[in-house]
């Protein structure tokens, strides 16, 4: 029983952050059709901005206000310049997707190299809410609880934004059929750039929350990108509830396998991933 509580609660506490990372990628790939290999790099930048501000006496959670908008801006500008140009030059979606994948690779190299030049490759950490809280008789990290709460709140807020606002509706229309959406008066370049920006912002926010919970390095980005790809496939492309379900499932399975055999935790992600692709490639919530 103790073990089950530990696995389920522990898994949920990781899953929240996983969901947030994947939501960003889901938006970037689901709507803007960029399989952004550099997604984890935005996360890493968010984490290091938090670290840097924390060293200068800023409360890490306050960084959300700085990191999110900053990365949104970077993502928005990147899409409006580089990816829009690729999209307009590409003769069809296939070429656009493969060329933007390549560009994302370029981005990955550039961002990581700059980060290594600025912050080096030594792992960094700071102590924030580093004490344990007892839930149902088991100890959990206080910072994980806070991070998960924030992740869920940000995700829910974004879900409401998509469902309730005009821009949200335009985004959903663009996701389903960019051509028709364009005909109906949606500024498609603006909307897609918005999506890419939101994706980058969510990666940045996830980075803030990760830096609160775990040690960070400048080379950690790709690992989180891979996790995001798995979660997105699991939950279904472009679905925000799907990202949550996928993130929590992956968190719980990962924690469970870690109790049994930590060396196979990452392998278990891929096994789930591969089985799912074979059985239901559209993901749990995919349409």
């Amino acid at each position: 029983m103790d073990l089950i509580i530990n696995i389920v609660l522990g898994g949920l506490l990781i899953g929240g952050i996983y969901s947030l990372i994947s939501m960003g990628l889901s938006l970037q790939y689901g709507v803007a059709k960029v399989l952004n290999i550099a997604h984890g790099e935005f996360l890493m930048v968010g984490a290091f901005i938090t670290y840097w501000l924390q060293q200068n006496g800023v409360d890490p959670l306050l960084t959300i206000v700085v990191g999110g908008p900053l990365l949104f801006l970077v993502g928005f500008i990147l899409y409006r310049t580089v990816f829009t140009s690729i999209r307009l030059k590409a003769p069809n979606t296939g070429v656009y997707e493969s060329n933007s994948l390549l560009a994302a690779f370029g981005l990955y190299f550039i961002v990581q190299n700059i980060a290594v030049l600025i912050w080096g490759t030594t792992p960094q950490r700071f102590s924030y809410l580093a004490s344990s809280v007892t839930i149902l008789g088991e100890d959990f990290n206080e910072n994980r609880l806070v991070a998960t709460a924030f992740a869920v709140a940000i995700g829910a807020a974004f879900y409401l934004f998509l469902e309730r606002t005009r821009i949200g509706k335009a985004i959903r229309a663009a996701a389903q059929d960019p051509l028709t959406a364009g005909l109906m008066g949606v500024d498609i370049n603006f909307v897609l750039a918005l999506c890419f920006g939101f994706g980058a912002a969510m990666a940045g926010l996830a980075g803030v929350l990760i830096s609160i919970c775990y040690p960070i390095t400048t080379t950690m980005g790709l690992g989180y990108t891979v996790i995001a790809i798995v979660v997105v496939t699991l939950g279904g492309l472009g679905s925000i509830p799907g990202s949550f379900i996928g993130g929590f499932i992956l968190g719980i399975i990962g924690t469970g396998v870690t109790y049994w055999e930590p060396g196979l935790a990452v392998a278990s992600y891929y096994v789930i991933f591969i089985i799912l692709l074979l059985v239901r490639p559209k993901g749990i919530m995919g349409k």
Partner: protein
Amino acid sequence: MDFSKINWKKAAITAGIPLVILIFLGLWPTIGPQYWVTLFSYFLLYIIISVSWTIFSGATGYISLASAAFYGIGIYAAALFREQFAANLPLIVVVLIGGLASFVLAFIVGAITLRLKGIYFAMFTFGLVLLLKEVIYYWEIQFNDLRGRFVAPESNDTIYYYLLGIFVITMIVAYLIRRSKYGLALQIIGENEEAAAHTGINVTMVKVLTYAVSAIFIGAAGVIMATKLTYVDPGVAFSPMMSFSPVLMAIFGGMGSIYGPVIGAVIFTYIEEILKTGSMKNYYMLIFGVILIGVILYLPNGIVGSIQNLWKRISGARRAHTRG
């Protein structure tokens, strides 16, 4: 009369120039500086991998990210059958084993996944590489108490000539497939799979078989490279970069012709070499990334495609000029 004359010229060019290149490559170890033989080995390696990748993915549009898996299988074939300080199978036999193992793996992967569309196929193949890496790591540590294995080294010339041999076979096979009705079938599949099925092409068979054949060369190259690396572990064998490199090289060079991936591979490898060992080594990834984005933005058809376009424009202008 005029007609036959052009044909003869064409034939001479088609057969002659590759022959000249081949003789040059064959003599290279005797005329080239020592390190440049090594560097040419890397050129050949990346040409083999990117051309193999293009045979299937270039034509059909299915982006395979499993090259590293086939390469790694080849490396592990060498690690098992060409151990250091042990009685071993002859190298040529191991090369065949590596090629065959890759063929089998690609056949299985192809058979179960080629119904996946577009990006899902890419994701599956990438997941496969990472899964193999994790599982072999775990297996080696848990059951054999080792991380990597030592492979019996070969001389640089042996490695070079083996790669040259695989390179020649790869190019011939790529050329023949392109020329044959298989190549045509692949093109049609790439354009419209359903239409291809309606015209009576056995879509699944063509796809799976081509995929498996293209994997042979990657596996065989893996065996040879293992004898150069001499120390291999799952991280080296199943490095994701081996999956991405052929894609980048092929798109960079241009997938419209058989030469695109060749040129992409050579230029990529050379740029990497210069950047990594030059005075800019701390900015290697940065420059590399900028070049990548620049190429996609300004040369979207790859280098060969763009030069061809440019050439057409120049020669078109000249013809127009002479006519006028």
